[in-house]
């Protein structure tokens, strides 16, 4: 990565929004709004500060600055989930819930087919199921998924947005059962 050139060409407003949205989605997946008392925007600001002051060295990374920051954020949040494994407490009511993200694989019996049924159960349409099937094959970049389904990236983003909502519905439903 040409780190300094990337810094000069980065749209920080856009990148900040994307990282905050991603952090929010990850925290929301386990029904929490903060991590170690920090809101998503604080987590993102902390990460930027570490990278820009060379505490976390991005210069030698082979990926882009955006990929590097997303990778770091994902790893930070996942590390937090694993530290708090197996239980997380919701910020709102102090209610204890299981953490679907960090659950050991053998604890979950859900297969691809089972998950597709769950998606259908919360109203996912055929387009969403097609996208999910492509993910299951290991193709996860929206542009690649679009190529596979002969759809534009913009259409894939919209389908994926609906899928995110339905995944959230599944989590809420499982929580209600617990």
């Amino acid at each position, binding site marked *: 990565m040409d780190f300094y050139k990337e810094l000069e060409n*980065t749209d920080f407003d856009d990148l*900040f929004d994307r990282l905050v949205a991603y952090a*929010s989605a990850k925290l929301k997946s386990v029904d929490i709004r903060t991590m170690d008392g920090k809101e998503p*925007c604080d987590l993102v600001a902390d990460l930027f500060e570490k990278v820009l002051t060379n505490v976390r060295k991005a210069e030698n990374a082979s990926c882009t600055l955006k990929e590097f920051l997303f990778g770091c954020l994902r790893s930070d949040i996942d590390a937090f989930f694993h530290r708090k494994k197996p239980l997380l407490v919701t910020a709102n009511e102090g209610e204890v819930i299981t953490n679907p993200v960090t659950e050991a694989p053998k604890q979950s019996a859900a297969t691809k087919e089972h998950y597709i049924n769950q998606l259908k159960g919360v109203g996912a349409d055929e387009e969403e199921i097609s996208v999910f099937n492509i993910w299951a094959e290991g193709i*996860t970049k929206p542009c690649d998924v679009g190529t596979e389904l002969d759809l534009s990236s913009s259409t894939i983003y919209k389908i994926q947005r609906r899928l995110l909502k339905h995944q959230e519905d599944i989590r809420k439903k499982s929580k209600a059962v617990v």
Partner: protein
Amino acid sequence: MTEQLRKNIEDAEMHFFMQADPDIIKQYLDECDIEGKNLTKKEVLLKRIKFLSKASVKKQHDSNLLAIAIKYKEAIEKNTSKPLQYLRNIMASKVSASYNNSLDKLSQEEIIELIKDQNLINLMDQLEQNGIDNEAKI
């Protein structure tokens, strides 16, 4: 859910937030009630991030300038013709500045002053081609 499927879903989620249209990201933030609520906080944090970024780029630029100036001093000592000719040309073009007429009397600071507006990558390449070791990273 298998571990691989879980990883694929998480990869897809990350790629979505990396690549989705800005409007979709804004819409998501609005729905999470993040955008409006933290607008002032976001502005403050972004201001700091942009400042740190500029400072980081400036620090690296200054470090590169210094590394190149040191190499030019070396070229002057070794009397390597091409880089010296280039320095003479820059000096000649800076009519308003008062530099020593003789290259060997140029200080490191004066060399930095001379080259600061030039394309540093070209300068590095030129020094390399003329046998002056390049240790700086641009």
